[in-house]
């Protein structure tokens, strides 16, 4: 609409010309009416149209696109109606949903198929309107199931009055959410603006209207995310009772006063909203991604680091998975398993497998294939046993009693010990299921160059150092991805990577370097978004040798750190203060844990309590370069100063990598008081490895500080045997709280990753994870 003037200005202008502002327009066709559009209307008196348009800084439009809403009809009819509508010229097809869940599934699928089947032309937007039919849980569940239908948005998923529910759905939904009935007037909008971080686009003016202030500050001062006017006067009757509110917004169309504004709530977690404009979810296009390193080979069972592992998620499926199309707190969902049963002792897992799934090589997926994959990485007598695979999957498959195929689509996995965290472990990328036929064909050595999975994309090939190519799996069981494929381009130099994005040579990049973030942000063609990583950066104190054995001293060190300043200034916003073990947005995050703030006075008091009123020296080891963060050195220097402020003279010893690793494996020795680490802490099972007494060195290297507490051990032991998820969560939350109270670590920050992409890239969900998927992406 391109309006650049406020209501006041326009009114002044019009009055100056002797025109009335409040005249109502009456529809009057100008020229032949084209189906799928609405005729512009002519004001009964006053301004002529071109005058008005020009005055308003806009251009005259002869036609105004509108959408078509398909009613609750049978799937077959939907196909017909959608096809008809597209041929008539409609470019937005909206489906009414919410009457009957099963019927909706079929109707949505039919709608999507009908749209995809249309020959190329202008892209058609596909959306749905639930008119408040669901509760929040139901809404989130449905929307996740419908991810393959690639909806551009969902309107009013929960009842109009349930703003909190709307917020909850917005947070979890893979589809942008529009508030429709929830915004009837200024009061509702005010509430919405306060409840969410809304984006008010340029064309919306929120100046006071008819003496009633909206109480909303002008655009420039509002935390912005996405407000949009969606309705047209096709719904005049419905709109009439919705007050004058619309006219405040819709100044480009003086004659169309009775507008309803709809507010689009976009993701507040990701800085950048997902495409709110009608995302043309038309199949096609190739995404080119700038990678920060050359990916390794694509073994399904070896972790070659996040740069490779995230690609495993695109090639392969696992039995269960964290749904990466959800931005935060990714739910654990069935992937190749559709259902599972866990025995009360948490040892026996029986999985029902998805039927009709085929590997990329055309061979069928079944229980034998799963057994082959598990045996290959756990049974030394298996013909294709790999030590490297067994080493890498020891956590999940290291203690198996048996793996039995019960029937073609049922498999039973029995552990020797209770292992209630097994499902979460299975969701890790390296538990991917590969085609047994391919492994047999190529052998263990060559298989990684010919990876064959069941995932949304097929591996096509690679030119080392140049590109790795993937193409759409048209038979993907959850619906083929929109992209024709994607290309991974290794661009190790950070400046080159950003430049290639800016010049359009690549469409999407990972690991934007901190110095380039402003340049990317200021480029209107690009979107920069931070993703909270499941990462915890801090110090592990020595719990075995004094003086750090005193809880008061460890707490004092925790209170001494100014995490806010550290995250904001030193780390340029690429981190948030750590309150405990798990970062927000990770499945193990407990918002009730308050952790430690910045309170030097309290730290000094605690230091006295611990018996060091005049301070003390500390010996801290850090890995060479301050590992685990690009800011490692500056962070350590900043914290050293924080410690100094409370009288603790910390000596930071840089240790070369090997020495440091040996220390981790052998435990911290007597002369060292703490070591600095940056751990990936994603699932609850990490707590087992970080805090269990029996996993102290030399039985593991993730508890190098010899932390041990009988209470924590008991909780962790109980958690392993607790199959009820809610109870298990509670147990782990207790462990986290105890670890924080004990100051088991000196928790510092949770780091973030900066990713950026061209605005042409639609539908990319930026999850709070090292992993991501291109399954939902399309190119415009």
């Amino acid at each position, binding site marked *: 609409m391109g309006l650049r003037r406020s209501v006041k200005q326009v009114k002044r202008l019009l009055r100056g010309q002797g025109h009335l502002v409040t005249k109502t327009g009456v529809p009057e066709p100008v020229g032949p009416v084209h189906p799928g559009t609405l005729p512009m209307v002519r004001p009964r008196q006053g301004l002529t149209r071109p005058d008005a348009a020009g005055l308003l800084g806009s251009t005259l439009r002869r036609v105004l696109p509108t959408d078509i809403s398909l009613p609750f009809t049978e799937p077959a009819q939907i196909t017909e109606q959608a096809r008809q509508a597209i041929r008539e010229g409609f470019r937005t097809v909206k489906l009414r949903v919410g009457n009957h869940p099963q019927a909706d599934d079929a109707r949505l699928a039919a709608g999507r198929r009908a749209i995809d089947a249309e020959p190329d032309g202008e892209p058609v937007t596909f959306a749905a309107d639930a008119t408040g039919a669901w509760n929040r849980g139901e809404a989130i569940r449905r929307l996740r199931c419908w991810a393959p239908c690639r909806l551009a948005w969902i309107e009013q998923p929960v009842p109009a009055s349930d703003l909190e529910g709307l917020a909850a759905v917005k947070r979890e939904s893979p589809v942008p959410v529009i508030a429709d009935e929830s915004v009837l007037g200024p009061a509702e909008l005010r509430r919405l603006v306060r409840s969410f971080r809304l984006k008010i686009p340029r064309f919306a003016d929120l100046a006071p209207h008819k003496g009633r202030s909206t109480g909303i500050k002008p655009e420039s001062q509002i935390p912005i995310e996405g407000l949009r006017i969606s309705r047209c006067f096709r719904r005049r009757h419905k709109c009439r009772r919705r007050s004058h509110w619309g006219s405040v917004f819709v100044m480009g169309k003086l004659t169309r006063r009775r507008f309803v504004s709809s507010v689009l709530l976009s993701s507040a977690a990701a800085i950048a909203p997902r495409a709110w404009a009608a995302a043309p979810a038309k199949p096609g296009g190739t995404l080119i991604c700038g990678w920060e390193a*050359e990916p390794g080979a694509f073994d399904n069972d070896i972790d070659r680091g996040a740069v490779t592992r995230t690609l495993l998620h695109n090639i392969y499926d696992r039995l269960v998975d964290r749904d990466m199309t959800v931005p935060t707190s990714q739910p654990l969902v069935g992937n190749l398993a559709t259902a599972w049963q866990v025995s009360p002792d948490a040892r026996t897992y029986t999985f029902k497998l998805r039927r009709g799934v085929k590997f990329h090589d055309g061979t069928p997926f079944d229980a034998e294939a799963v057994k082959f994959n598990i045996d290959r990485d756990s049974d030394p007598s298996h013909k294709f046993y790999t030590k490297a695979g067994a080493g*890498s999957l020891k956590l999940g498959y290291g203690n198996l009693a048996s793996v039995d195929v019960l029937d073609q689509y049922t498999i039973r996995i029995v552990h020797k010990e209770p292992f209630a965290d097994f499902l979460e472990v299975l969701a890790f990328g390296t538990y991917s299921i590969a085609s047994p036929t391919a492994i047999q064909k190529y052998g263990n050595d060559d298989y990684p*160059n010919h990876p064959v999975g069941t995932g949304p994309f097929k591996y096509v090939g690679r030119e080392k150092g140049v590109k790795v190519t993937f193409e759409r799996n048209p038979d993907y069981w959850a619906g083929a991805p929109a992209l024709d494929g994607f290309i991974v381009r290794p661009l190790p130099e950070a400046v080159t990577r950003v*430049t290639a994005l800016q010049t359009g*040579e690549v469409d999407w990049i990972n690991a934007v370097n901190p110095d380039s973030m402003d340049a990317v942000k200021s480029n209107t063609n690009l979107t920069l978004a931070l993703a909270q990583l499941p990462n915890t950066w801090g110090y592990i104190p020595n719990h075995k040798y004094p003086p750090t054995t005193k809880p008061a001293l460890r707490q004092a060190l925790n209170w001494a750190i100014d995490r806010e300043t550290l995250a904001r200034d030193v780390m340029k916003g690429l981190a948030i203060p750590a309150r405990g073990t798990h970062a927000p947005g990770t499945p193990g995050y407990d918002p009730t844990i308050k952790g430690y703030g910045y309170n030097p006075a309290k730290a000094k008091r605690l230091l006295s309590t611990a018996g060091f009123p005049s301070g003390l020296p500390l010996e801290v080891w850090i890995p060479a370069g301050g590992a685990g963060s690009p800011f490692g050195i500056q962070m350590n220097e900043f914290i050293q100063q924080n410690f100094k402020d409370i009288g603790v003279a910390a000596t930071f010893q840089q240790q070369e990598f090997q020495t440091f690793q040996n220390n981790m494996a052998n435990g911290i020795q007597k002369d060292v008081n703490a070591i600095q680490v940056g751990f990936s802490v994603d699932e609850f099972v990490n707590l087992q490895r970080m805090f269990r007494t029996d996993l102290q060195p030399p039985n593991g290297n993730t508890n190098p500080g010899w932390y041990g507490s009988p209470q924590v051990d008991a909780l962790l032991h109980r958690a392993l045997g607790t199959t009820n998820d809610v109870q298990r969560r509670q147990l782990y939350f207790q462990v986290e709280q105890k670890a924080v109270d004990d100051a088991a670590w000196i928790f510092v920050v949770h780091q973030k990753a900066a990713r950026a992409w061209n605005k042409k890239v639609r539908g990319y969900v930026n999850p709070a994870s090292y992993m991501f998927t291109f399954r939902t992406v399309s190119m415009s």
Partner: protein
Amino acid sequence: MLSFVVGRVLATVPVLLGVSVVVFLTMKLIPGDAAQVLAGPQATREQVELIRESLGLNRPLYVQYTTWLGNAVRGNLGRSIELEAPVSSMVLDRLKNTLVLAIGSAVFAITIGVPIGILSATRRASLLDRASVVFALFGNSMPSFWLGLVLILVLSLHLRLFPSQGMYSLRGPTGFGDLMWHLTLPALTLSGVPAAALARVTRSSLLETLHEDYIRTARAKGIAETRVVVRHALGNALLPVVTLVGIQAGYLLGGSILVETVFSWPGLGLQLYDAIGARDLPLVQGGVLLVAGLFVCINLAVDMLYSQLDPRIRYTA
């Protein structure tokens, strides 16, 4: 002549052996091995040991080295740990890309460096001469990755004249023109140091030659100055220049690691960079060995070129 060549070729064997031992030991000195990288930072020792065993990294050093050497002599350079592919084909694949870059840079270096040297020698102490000295100092002392980034920011990001990375476009046609377009910036960057060195050596060598008696004789005969410089002086002054070109060719092959990384040029240098990051010893070994072998070959070629430039030089084994 033949015996000279045979002798020189034989002499390369201990050189290459030495290089392989040094690389092997250096890679062992770099902290962390491939098993540790594969297992990740939070793996238990047991996990790392299993992976180390599967890679054969638990065997004594001399066994690892001699096994590798035995295979290498038979042309088998082993398998890359990170990319699970035979090293010999991987390094040869990349070599041609590096050669393209090296030739491009050599062309730039010679066409920029030699004329500057000639001009500044013939206009000694002029403003141009001083500027060329500054250029040589600047070219020699600035790091190539810095020059690369500056060129990317100016010519690629702001002026949009050249692509910032890669050897071919990922979208659109890929032909010879596309290759040249992609080659310009990395070749220009890589030519910075050799161009400066060539300018300096050409200048001093030409200055020296211009003071020779026969030049005075030529001038006395009334031959035009241009002809004196080009026909009489330059040929004789080129000897040290050619030696330098040979040495710089080695630099162009081995020293392109940084430039290739900055421009994501899929050559040996970028491969070495990735391989070192992944502690992929077989790949590092193979890559360095190839570069060393090439270096030796180029030096040999330069030595043989002398006789063409200066017939007085004779070879004895």
